[in-house]
């Protein structure tokens, strides 16, 4: 049975706790207060809650203005409305002046957008932001990781993007685990046949695939890559030097996100076979999260097959 916990509530509760101690934190919404469950924050800090209405470009540019005066604005709404609707404001007025604006994007991935359909499923956010210099990019695994990641990113200077989910998000990790910004985490190491690099709510699938592979004699190492920038290149090179084969798993287009980031490291530092599991450059449809991910290339079988394929390439045979 999958357990669920709400990443949106985890975010806002953590932010409220931080705001209680830090008078510089300001929450900026674009009619997204219900989306991110901000009623409690609004009641506790009415002077530090700004809602500009359904106007994301204005929300981001206004946050940039706030940050230029020493405040720490946190813009929170759906992932695509920040990274696409307000993309230029993010790039030119937040990232270019390296302002201390924190951006929190909900519905990251098709599993989080699920039944809403393509307009509210965001699987390009990470790729878009990875091409803009200077933005720290974080994809926490689950609600307890979001709580810790919020504290970590508020204390990091400059622009940050934090991806959260639907509000019905699988519990992925032991809630006692810390969050260390910019570091990969070895989640389960059966051996060094192949590395499975995953993040966010795809992690349970990566772990299930590793277990299934183990039962068929393939020993995988499952590694969480929650920070796409700064990328833990050293840690990634170290694990890939051991395994000599890599599979990435992400709820994102295979172009631009984790798969691309790992491909860049592989091409420049440690040439090993790679297969990318994720959305295969297409638009999905509405559906229940788990079924949708199964249908669009993120099933446990898809991950196992990708692992077998890279193993065959590593060993110089056809899969």
């Amino acid at each position, binding site marked *: 049975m999958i357990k669920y916990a709400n990443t949106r509530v985890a975010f806002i509760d953590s932010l409220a706790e931080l705001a209680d101690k830090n008078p510089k934190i*300001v929450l900026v919404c674009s009619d997204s207060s219900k989306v991110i469950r901000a009623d409690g924050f609004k009641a506790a800090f009415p*002077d*530090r809650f*700004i809602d*500009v*209405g359904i*106007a994301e*470009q*204005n929300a981001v*540019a*206004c*946050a*940039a*203005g*706030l*940050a*230029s*005066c*020493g*405040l720490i*604005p946190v813009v929170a709404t759906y992932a695509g409305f920040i990274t696409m609707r307000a993309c*230029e*404001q993010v790039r*030119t*007025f937040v990232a*270019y*002046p*390296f302002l201390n604006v924190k951006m929190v994007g909900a519905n990251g991935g098709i599993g989080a957008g699920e039944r809403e359909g393509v307009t509210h499923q965001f699987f390009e956010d990470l790729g878009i932001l990875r091409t803009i210099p200077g933005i720290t990019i974080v994809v926490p695994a689950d609600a307890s990781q979001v709580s810790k990641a919020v504290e970590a990113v508020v204390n990091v200077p400059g622009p940050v993007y934090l991806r959260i989910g639907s509000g019905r998000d699988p519990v992925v990790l032991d809630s006692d685990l810390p969050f260390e910004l910019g570091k990969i985490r070895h989640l389960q190491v059966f051996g060094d046949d192949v590395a499975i690099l995953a993040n966010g709510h795809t992690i349970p699938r990566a772990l299930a695939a590793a277990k299934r592979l183990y039962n068929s004699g393939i020993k995988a190492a499952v590694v969480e890559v929650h920070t796409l920038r700064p990328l833990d290149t050293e840690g990634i090179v170290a694990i890939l030097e051991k395994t000599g084969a890599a599979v990435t798993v992400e709820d994102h287009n295979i172009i631009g996100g984790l798969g691309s980031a790992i491909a860049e490291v592989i091409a420049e530092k440690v040439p090993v076979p790679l297969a990318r599991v994720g959305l295969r450059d297409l638009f999905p449809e509405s559906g229940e999260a788990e079924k949708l991910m199964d249908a669009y290339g993120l099933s446990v079988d898809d991950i196992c097959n990708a692992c077998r394929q890279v193993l065959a390439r590593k060993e110089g045979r056809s899969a």
Partner: protein
Amino acid sequence: MMISDTVSHLETMARQIRRDIITMIYQAGDGHPGPSLSCADLVTALYFAIMEVDPANPQWSRRDRLILSKGHACPAVYAALARKGYFDLSELPQLRTLGSILQGHPDMLKTPGIDFTSGSLGNGISVGLGIALAARINGLHYHTYVITGDGELQEGIIWEAAMAAKHYQVGNLIVFVDYNGIQSGGRTEEISGLEPIVPKFEAFGWHCQVIDGHNFTEILTAVANAKATPAIPSVIIANTIKGKGISFIENNNAWHKRVPTKAEWEQALQELGG
């Protein structure tokens, strides 16, 4: 000082700033003369009679702020900042050259005195809204000034910001529209008309004034009026002439972005009193 003395002082400074504008564009070999000359009087009034700033401490938290939303007019602001003492006049000819503190469009990290990065049109009022709200949150009493072009009022974010600024009653936000009637591609009314402009801002709940943007008495009076209506944001529609002050550049959109020849530069300086 009598207001007539102030005006006379500002007129002298504005002529100097116009000379600086045309000279830096001539020497650097790139830049936008028409848009810079258009708002030169507004910029002069702001830095030399209106804004409370400290060139020795550009990051002073209580300072008044200016966002040049029409960032391509930055030669006007660069000249004013240099004349005000933020940096040496010798920086001006380095405009748009590699390694210069004077980027092609304003960069708050590179140029002392630039309060906010700009150049991508339409964003200044929105940024100004954030800066004005920050004054409230931080318990400070500065004013936030924005200069937008007229053409950039075609951007949607302008009206997003206009709506929110009224909602949040940011009376410390004062916006000048540098209304010269010409945008990059031609006359605004022929491209996508802005008129009627005053009723638009009035409908958004703003305090509106229309002035001659080259008349210092009107500029100073309008700002005083705007400050006297503290509960709502203010817009001052400043009727201006693109290229103002140099006869062959005035209202000639070939000079939206163009570098003068040596002869043109010399003639311009002569018209501007040396």
